[in-house]
Structure formats: structure tokens, C-alpha cells
């Protein structure tokens, strides 16, 4: 399935957001959004992915 992950086109086999994080090797503290909507960590397992979904995986970063 083709999705866009952090702005990059990706072909993935994961069907849920939780599986996508595993497949793409994300670990540690991240926050997720699908199609510009926040998905709390507890809901990642039930968040199914669809062709063309835009997924954002964000992590702590320096800021002012």
C-alpha cells in the first residue's frame, strides 16, 4: 500500500498505524497523526491505514 510518511512516499505492508511504526523502525517517544488528525498512542492499533494516507510521526526536538 502506498502512503506518505513524514512527507516521503512509501510502499508499506502494514495495515494499521501501530504496525507501520514497527515496520518502519520507530521506537521511543513519538506522536502520530493521520491525515492531519492526531492519533493517540492507545488508538494506533485500531487505526487502519488506507491507500494515500498521510502519516506524521513526530519526536521531541529542540525549540524556542
Amino acid at each position, binding site marked *: 500500500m502506498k502512503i506518505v510518511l513524514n512527507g516521503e512516499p512509501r510502499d508499506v505492508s502494514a495495515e494499521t498505524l501501530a504496525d507501520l511504526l514497527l515496520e518502519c523502525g520507530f521506537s*521511543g517517544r513519538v506522536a502520530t497523526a493521520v491525515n492531519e*488528525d492526531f492519533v493517540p498512542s492507545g488508538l494506533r492499533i485500531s487505526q487502519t491505514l488506507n491507500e494515500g494516507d498521510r502519516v506524521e510521526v*513526530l*519526536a*521531541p*526536538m529542540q525549540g524556542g
Partner: protein
Amino acid sequence: MKTFYGTQLPNPLMLGTAQYPSPAILEQAFRDSGAGVATVSLRRESGAGQTFWQMIRELGVLVLPNTAGCHTVKEAVTTAHMAREVFDTKWIKLELIGHTDSLQPDVFQLVEAARILTDDGFEVFPYTTDDLIVGERLLTAGCEVLMPWGAPIGSGRGLNNEYALRAMRAEFPDVPLVIDAGIGLSSHAAHAMELGFDAVLLNTAVARAGDPVVMAKAMMQAVMAGQLAHQADPIEARDMAEPSTPVIGKAFLS
């Protein structure tokens, strides 16, 4: 002393974590200055985020995540929710940028986002202008802290409109007020505190100084000095001289 949503700050310096020459210098700047609050952000995971977060946690400072770079209410609200989960705090420095060159806040969207986030249980620190009516609207929206700009972000110009900031202090005597952005020198930071502000939030002035660690210490000393000076009830400036040494008893020697 005023609290920030019930939390007493250890000192009046809030320090940003961006733009330092290295993570080690960032860490040292916090350790040597003793700044009690660190602003942080969320960006696309590239691998460095976890190490950074570990270091911030080890500093033992209060963490204030921002919504930097957001231009719409929706974007800011979503970012705030993501930040609350990642950083495990209700605090959010709400930034809604309205102008690309000045990074001036879009105060209309700011008020709207502040209301939504407050209703969602956030404790909002709004980055705003020095406009009194906007300040009032933010308080009505549920904010218990206001963070007016001193000058545009990263400009280092100090307090551009002292008159407006004085008016803001006078209008909201019981609200914790933070000068956020525009500080370049320690004298600017001291000035803000002398006006009676409760804290100063700065980043670029320290991170981009030739020696960020020393500048961070200078900023801490400046905010402490300014705070003490304000508490000491300073004299009013006057136009004419007034001798400080007693005139009575002076010898007649001419």
C-alpha cells in the same frame, strides 16, 4: 510570588533549546545558568529526538513544548495534542504565526486556539503581542499566563515598546506575564524584570552568542538583578541633579 498554573518557577529564566552549536553546549548552558524551564518542540522523527529528550529529562527542568511554525488553529491544536502525549505535560506555549517576516502572532487565531485548548484541559502560555484587548480576550478564553513579545523572534532588539509593556503590566497586575522573544542582551532581560514582568523567555540571544554558556549565566544574573530591583521599589528618574552627599556641614574652603 505568582505561580504558573499552580507551579512556582525556581527562577524567572525560561530558556529555549534550539540553535546551540552542540548538544553539549546546550546542556552546559542549562546547568551553569540554572534556568528552570526549557522550551521544546516536535518535529518529524529523524533519529535524534530520543537522545535530545533523554538529555532534557536528565536536566530536571520544567518542559514547555511549543507550537512553533503553526499558521492555523487546526495545525496548532493538533500539534498541542501531540506535544501533550510526547512530553507528558498540560503546558503548551501556543504560537500562531501570522506574518512570515516579523513572525508576529496571528492574535485572532491565537484566541480561538487558546479557547479550544483550554477546554481540552491544556494550560496555555500564549505567545502574543503587547495589545491589551488581545490580552483580555486570551484571559477570557481561559489563559492564566500571557507572554507578550519584546520584539520579533530572534531580532535581539530588546523591548520595542516599553510603554505598551508597562501598560500591560499595570492592566493585569495579578496575571503572570512573561516577555517572550526579542531579547538580545542581558540589559534587555533585566529591563523586563525591572518593569515587573514575572519571567523572560529567550533562546537566540544565548544560543547564537559566541559563548552561549557564559551568556546564559549573564541572562540569569540579569533577570535576578532586575527582579530584585523591581522588588526594591526603584526611584523615579528626574530631569535635574540632586546632590546625594549632604550639603549641610560642608567646609568653607574657597
